[in-house]
């Protein structure tokens, strides 16, 4: 199950969707909006995506994971739009028979989502804003 969504992410619902009667362990990674970035106070964050490509790549990551590990189910969900401090930006979750596989695959999932999926983050500070470009910030003149 993969999705790019404008609406708040319901962590409990995702966990319920990937839990199966055969899976004993589920690892869920939740990325939330932090109140700071590189020493500056963040007021809010805006995520935008190339939605059809993002969902296609997320579906590919799901398939990669199913090839690499013996697991039951995968969920990759990323929110877009304007987010406030503490809001859930991304969830990756893997259910598996063995917890080794659940942890490893969930870790792989978030690393891949952050590394390749075409989604961008714009930080709004007390003064000004900045695009986050990979690991770097680029100030925006406004």
């Amino acid at each position, binding site marked *: 199950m993969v999705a790019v969504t404008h609406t708040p992410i319901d962590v409990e619902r995702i966990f319920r969707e990937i839990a199966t009667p055969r899976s004993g362990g589920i690892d869920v990674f939740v990325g939330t909006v932090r109140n700071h970035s590189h020493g500056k106070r963040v007021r809010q964050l805006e995520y935008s995506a190339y939605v059809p490509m*993002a969902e296609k790549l997320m579906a590919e990551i799901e398939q990669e994971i199913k090839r690499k590990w013996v697991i039951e189910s995968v969920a990759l969900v990323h929110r877009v739009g304007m987010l406030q401090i503490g809001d859930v930006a991304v969830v990756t979750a893997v259910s598996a028979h063995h917890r080794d596989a659940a942890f490893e695959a969930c870790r792989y999932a978030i690393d891949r989502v952050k590394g390749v999926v075409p989604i961008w983050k714009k930080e709004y500070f007390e003064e000004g804003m900045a695009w*986050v470009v990979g690991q770097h910030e680029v100030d925006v003149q406004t």
Partner: protein
Amino acid sequence: MISVNVKFFGPLREIVGEERKLELPDACTGDVAFEKLASSYHGLHKWKPSVRLAVNLEYVQFSHELHAGDEVSFIPPVSGG
């Protein structure tokens, strides 16, 4: 001549806008398409070392040959999560 649709996202959208239709010679590469855009939009050039080319929702090399009707995008470094 072929016509392709180029979409822009993130920081590049603020330079170029959402979408541009581009007329290109036959058998033209992604690299040529980028240079053509960069000649119109000055802010674009500095992004060349870091952007990746996507054609029809897939990452490809800059040497990839474009075809009529392709959906093209130059993808700045992603920062999801």
